[in-house]
């Protein structure tokens, strides 16, 4: 797929604070591109520069062949934007709201159809303040779609939503992606990035510290699989360490964890060992490495403290 966005040496300085520090990346047409990072990493600032909402201190953003700094209005015509804290006029119902926004693009839309797409058709006569959190986010996506954008920006679309509403929104994002819209989203949630994104940029302290597909990033972490067990006795860590396939054994509060790159070898060896030693294993859990581990490995910090 060709690139639809090229970001080169993009930089934002507020007074003397650098919020985005010379980052580079491209976004392929039709993909879902994620920017993952902790609070204050610079995700929103990056997005808003790409959307033409914030002045660019240095560098360029070219979107669909148009330079954001010089052709802001042309860029705004082909993108849809959901802001991190989107809010809308209280005095209009959803239908009027969507029609008003369409008018800003010089377009008319079938508001009902758009609302049906985000499952808000029953709320067509409601006001924004009468919507739940998840419904508000879906509305703001519907409003972002009034101009049939080529690129859709979603800034933390699921923050503050309960798991059910979050899954609901994931379905919606995938459904929009299915129509060929390129999506750029930011998130704090690893799981969300893994589920939704074709490629993920991990951002920390104003810089992009890694950019790859979810599997590529997991490989990067090189942590393999974690086996977690609870036991009644203190864990014989020294012996566990010697089991075939086990890289590292660590004693925990009520048991131990093993790190392995060959779970198919390590697990049978662990079970045999436990039987021989009469160790009772409670709650055996096997975890794949997650982006959380990747972040920890790259920065030495947890993503969300």
């Amino acid at each position, binding site marked *: 797929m060709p690139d639809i966005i090229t970001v080169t040496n993009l930089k934002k300085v507020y007074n003397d604070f650098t919020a985005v520090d010379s980052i580079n990346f491209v976004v392929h047409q039709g993909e879902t591109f994620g920017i993952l990072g902790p609070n204050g990493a610079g995700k929103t600032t990056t997005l808003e520069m790409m959307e033409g909402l914030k002045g660019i201190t240095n560098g360029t953003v070219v979107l669909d062949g148009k330079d954001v700094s010089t052709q802001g209005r042309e860029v705004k*015509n082909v993108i849809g934007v959901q*802001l991190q804290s989107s*809010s809308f*006029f209280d005095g*209009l119902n959803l239908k009027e709201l969507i029609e008003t926004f369409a*008018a*800003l693009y010089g377009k008319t839309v079938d508001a009902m159809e758009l609302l049906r797409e985000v499952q808000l058709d029953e709320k067509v006569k409601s006001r924004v303040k009468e919507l739940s959190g998840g419904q508000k986010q879906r509305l703001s996506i519907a409003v972002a779609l009034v101009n049939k954008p080529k690129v859709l920006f979603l800034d933390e679309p699921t923050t503050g939503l309960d798991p059910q509403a979050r899954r609901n929104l994931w379905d919606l994002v995938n459904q929009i992606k299915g129509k060929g819209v390129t999506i750029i989203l930011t998130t704090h949630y690893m799981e969300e990035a893994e589920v939704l994104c074709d490629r993920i940029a991990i951002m920390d302290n104003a810089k992009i510290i890694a950019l790859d597909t979810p599997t590529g990033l997991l490989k990067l972490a090189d942590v393999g699989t974690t086996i977690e067990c609870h036991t009644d006795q203190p864990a014989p860590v020294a012996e566990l360490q010697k089991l075939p396939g086990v890289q590292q054994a660590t004693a925990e509060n009520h048991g131990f964890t093993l790190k392995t790159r060959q779970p198919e070898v390590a697990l049978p060896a662990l079970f045999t060992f436990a039987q021989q030693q009469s160790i009772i294993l409670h709650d055996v859990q096997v975890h794949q490495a997650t982006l959380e581990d990747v972040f920890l490995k790259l920065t030495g910090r947890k993503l969300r403290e």
Partner: protein
Amino acid sequence: MTIRTLTIASLKMFVRNKQSLFFTLFMPFIFIGIFGLIGFDKPQTIDLGIVTRSPSAPTKAFVDSLGNISAFHVTAGTESEERAALQKGDRAVVLIVPDDLFPDPAAIPPGREGGAGQAPAAKTAPKAKDVTILKNVAYEQQAQTAITILTQLFDKTTLQVAKAPTLFNLDVQSINANKVRYIDFLLPGIVAMSIMQMAVFSVAFVFTDYKEKGILKRLLATPMKPLDFVASQVITRLLVAVTQSAVLLGFGALVFKSHIYGNPLLILLTVLLGGIMFLGLGFTISGLSKTTDAVPAIANIIVFPMLFLSGIFFPISSMPNWLQGVVTYLPLQPFAKAMRAIIGDGAGFNVIKGDLAWVAGWAIVLVALAVITFRWEEKRM
């Protein structure tokens, strides 16, 4: 196309917003209602205190006759009592009458038109007697009226004593009659005031709210021209200003039989000019307010003094001179004055062009301030 859609949308929002409606129509209705019903039109009696010690019979007759004048509410007392009452604000004027104001044997019935005329022939011109009038400056107008009436009485008596022929027959009562009804004075000013309230508060609240909630930022993420949005907001409010003026004037005319003279086009021009001026103020206030909480504080500091000092409820001529010098130039004063001149007196353009020039000048200044202070986005940190 964009402007039209935005204007229609914001008109809908305006009408649905209870707060805007309150400032636009409800409050002025109440003002007109209350003040129109109280009606300060009925001539109020003037509290007149009279001090005598042991008056001669004719002096006493003169004093008693004052009580027959309907404009006065007369109280008699000692000088110290009456001075105290004046201090307390219970008297507008206190008249200190010397006992021998009229010498005893002569009986002069005062205050009667061409009455008995039994005045004794004055062989020599009598020496002028000192009559002291203490006036309460807090009731300047009433005191002046009282003094006018009293002066006339004394003049007439003097003439009678001097046996001068009666050249004029004056009706003493007419001195106190009000020519212009209070509602006629009030209504145009209330219309001007309500336009101020509407323009200042609806813009300041709504725009600060849009800014605070990030709605303006969301709008800027569309290819909309920012000026189109501002234009639609201005057009909306000017339409409201015109409608509101028509409704309030119609209400005054129907319910209180207020007179509405003047060229409707000139009224329209004045309303639009005043509207633009106060919209400029509204945008400036929203530019200065970081949050919606700050709006009422800032707006009231500016709007409240104007509300009471711009001659809406009482003429500014009743204010001290130094204050008049200041308030004459506040935005609301020339606007209200022009409205009153057109609506109340049917004044033409030439009469009010000075006031309109002030309004236009303020409009330019306030719109410029609005442009300087206005921000689309709330600054963080």
